[in-house]
């Protein structure tokens, strides 16, 4: 994979019209990074989008559209990995939802499958036998759970129990009307 030259500390983008070049630009030296995760239905409706690289709305839409089309065109007998532009895409279908991650060249596809599986397990534990409707009607919770599991595209907690505990506690906090320093003093 060609390395683009780093854009400098002010992070002014090299002005490529093609958004994939920007993806490359950002992946300068680190070749282990999840760039984004998409969840979509079999009809191609987006249910969750988490971007770990900065892109414009227009670019995100374009990537989403293309990738969704590509993944939906895959036949069931095919493997879970595909090369897409300069990235590797790892996807897996759980019931009516496709979970799709874009990782970089040096990343380990098999462990990414485990990451996806862990996220599904967390959703399942939280919602109790999760289905697509849960994700549709509680999309913000799906994001909260994801953000307790991954940060910047990397796993921050490898214990299922700890992630769920943190979510539980944070949910409780929503009940409290105001956060005041004196009440919760450290």
């Amino acid at each position: 994979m060609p390395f683009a030259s780093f854009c400098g500390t002010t992070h002014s983008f090299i002005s490529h019209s093609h958004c994939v070049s920007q993806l490359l630009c950002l992946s300068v030296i680190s070749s282990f990074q999840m760039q984004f995760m998409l969840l979509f239905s079999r009809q191609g409706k987006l249910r969750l989008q988490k971007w770990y690289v900065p892109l414009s709305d227009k670019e995100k839409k374009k990537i989403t559209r293309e990738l969704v089309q590509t993944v939906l065109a895959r036949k069931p007998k095919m493997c879970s990995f595909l090369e897409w532009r300069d990235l590797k895409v790892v996807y897996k279908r759980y019931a009516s939802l496709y979970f799709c991650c874009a990782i970089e060249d040096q990343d380990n596809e098999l462990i990414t499958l485990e990451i996806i599986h862990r996220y599904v397990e967390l959703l399942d534990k939280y919602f109790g036998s999760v289905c697509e409707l849960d994700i549709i009607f509680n999309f913000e919770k799906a994001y909260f759970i994801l953000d307790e599991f991954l940060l910047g595209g990397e796993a921050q907690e490898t214990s299922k129990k700890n992630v769920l505990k943190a979510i539980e506690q944070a949910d409780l906090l929503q009940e409290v009307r105001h956060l005041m320093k004196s009440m919760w003093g450290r």
Partner: protein
Amino acid sequence: MPAPIRLRELIRTIRTARTQAEEREMIQKECAAIRSSFREEDNTYRCRNVAKLLYMHMLGYPAHFGQLECLKLIASQKFTDKRIGYLGAMLLLDERQDVHLLMTNCIKNDLNHSTQYVQGLALCTLGCMGSSEMCRDLAGEVEKLLKTSNSYLRKKAALCAVHVIRKVPELMEMFLPATKNLLSEKNHGVLHTSVVLLTEMCERSPDMLAHFRKNEKLVPQLVRILKNLIMSGYSPEHDVSGISDPFLQVRILRLLRILGKSDDDSSEAMNDILAQVATNTETSKNVGNAILYETVLTIMDIKSESGLRVLAINILGRFLLNNDKNIRYVALTSLLKTVQTDHNAVQRHRSTIVDCLKDLDVSIKRRAMELSFALVNGNNIRGMMKELLYFLDSCDPEFKADCASGVFLAAEKYAPSKRWHIDTIMRVLTTAGSYVRDDSVPNLIQLITNSVEMHAYTVQRLYKALLDDISQQPLVQVASWCIGEYGDLLVSGQCEEEEPIQVTEDEVLDVLEGLLVSNLSTPVTRGYSLTAIMKLSTRFSSVNRIKKVVSIYGSSIDVELQQRAVEYNALFKKYDHMRPALLERMPIMEKSASNGPTEIVQTNGETEPSVVEPKHLPPVTQPVNQANDLLDLLGGNDVVPVIQTTMPTKPASAGGELLDLLGDLSLSAIPPMTAYNKNGLKIDFTFERANPNPNIAVITIHASNSTEADMTDFVFQAAVPKTFQLQLLSPSSNVVPALNQGTVTQVIRVLNPQKQQLRMRIKLTYTLKGSPVQDLAEVNNFPPQSWQ
């Protein structure tokens, strides 16, 4: 003002919309309501409204007017507000807009909040989308949190630091002290994120890498942690299918890879643990294989001992037999990376790899194909080629071009015999002829030309192929060219390799003319067939038929075809005496470099291309003049053919260098000489030296005619020994006037790099008083100065 509808109710309502238009209408209505609510600065329902906006944004509708509202939510004291506010910021804001900088202060405050979950929100947001400016401003806060004893925050701070370093690499140094005792943590979350942070630092900075190797003794620490993970008993919290914290194991293995690369000591220190992981990991589930995969990658990248490398390749070999196609896929990918360095080890798995050509998955097939080509060698060429040709027959069109190129290349490198080589090419052309790359046509022509003993066989097979199918252009072009060249062999029925077919001249011309008129033929193909037909005028007896065809195309709409036809017509009419010479058999072409097709496309870019940059011979479409008879007389292959330009068009390649080398002509005192003097025709040579290259002699011939009648259609030809190169320029005229009233001059350039004695054989043809005259002579009396 009624309370804005709840989020879930909105979702329910929108989902009832039956058309896109209906949905849009609902959305527009709700957006209007939300906008007025925002205008009223309603604190109570802001959170609800932004949440709704985020839902509509996911459906694809614009939501930028909610950006500032997100900031207000972040600044709120309610946790619910902050949660939605930060989520909104991550979804709606991006670092290209200055608005995002307004977040910085809020984040800073929240990083110091008394509630860890608020701090967590801030760290998460910063670590996902913080711009370089924000990172600069807040790096100090992150660094502080990296040192906290609260593991919930510490792990998040570590990943946040990773992001900061990615955005602002110069800040890496400031995180160094905080990494000191990260690995002594018991908490797996902290361990995992710490390993990620250390990986990032080592990857980015060779100094850091050296520091962690030498000073911090990172390798032993990592080895110890990994060992504990493997040896420790069942730990329910981190267990995945019987394996303890596979995520952490994989990250450790990855960091070990970076530390061990190009470093003997580090590699040695991790040798045992790698062997242990490789042999003890449970392989029944994906998770175990994920760890094995990472282990293999590490073993191959560091300076591991050979036993370990063989172990790694064997693991990959076992992967190839796994039922799970994902595993087979990663195995092929990894083998592709190692095939250059551990070629023999990978060869042992060749048959399994070849079986993968039949896999249903496109990615697996592609990798198997690339790997197969990498494994072809002189010993297995026959067997491998059988499999690859079978693959070529049945594979998807997207593979055919690359596969065909690969076959040509492998065949060229390892062909066991010329017959086999031609057969293989034929097979590719007939099964995948339309996918073959354009540059293959001249390469194949050159190959066929140089396989002298196979000419009859080749032309026969190509002819038969044409009878079956004229739709594949590269096949048709090569076949036309061959028929034009070797059509005489075709009709004479001389084939040693297989049963000769009986075909008449008319049948051959039918086929070639058929190509000219067919809708399937491209203009290039038509050009090939017209030229072929023309060439047959010296090999066949049905010249009149050919003349007719050629004259028809003199008014073709296709300019290229028209030009050719006109020129060939001229050849018939005005230069008929030159025609035999012009259209004679091609000489053996010099091979410049490996004329293989361009490199096989490697989709993951891992393997080094195994092909040299191809040097193309220009497609030989112009008739080339060469004095075959002269060659024979001077002793077989001893002589280099002469390229004569009869028309003022670009010369063919062989003479090109002479043109380039020629600088100013400068006179030097080389005496002129008479080369030939017979029957009233006298030819004198005068000499010049070309500067700056002293190896080139420039000879001007002066032909004069002392008889009473003009000598018309005068053609001068020359041949020199092999160590020389010669080029003839256009003559001043082809009529030598009678009674010495004028001379015909022509320039010859001779390149004589070995400074050998110049010899020349010349051939003269002209018409005198209606009768053609031809004579041959040898010129040996060159003055020494002309070649010393």
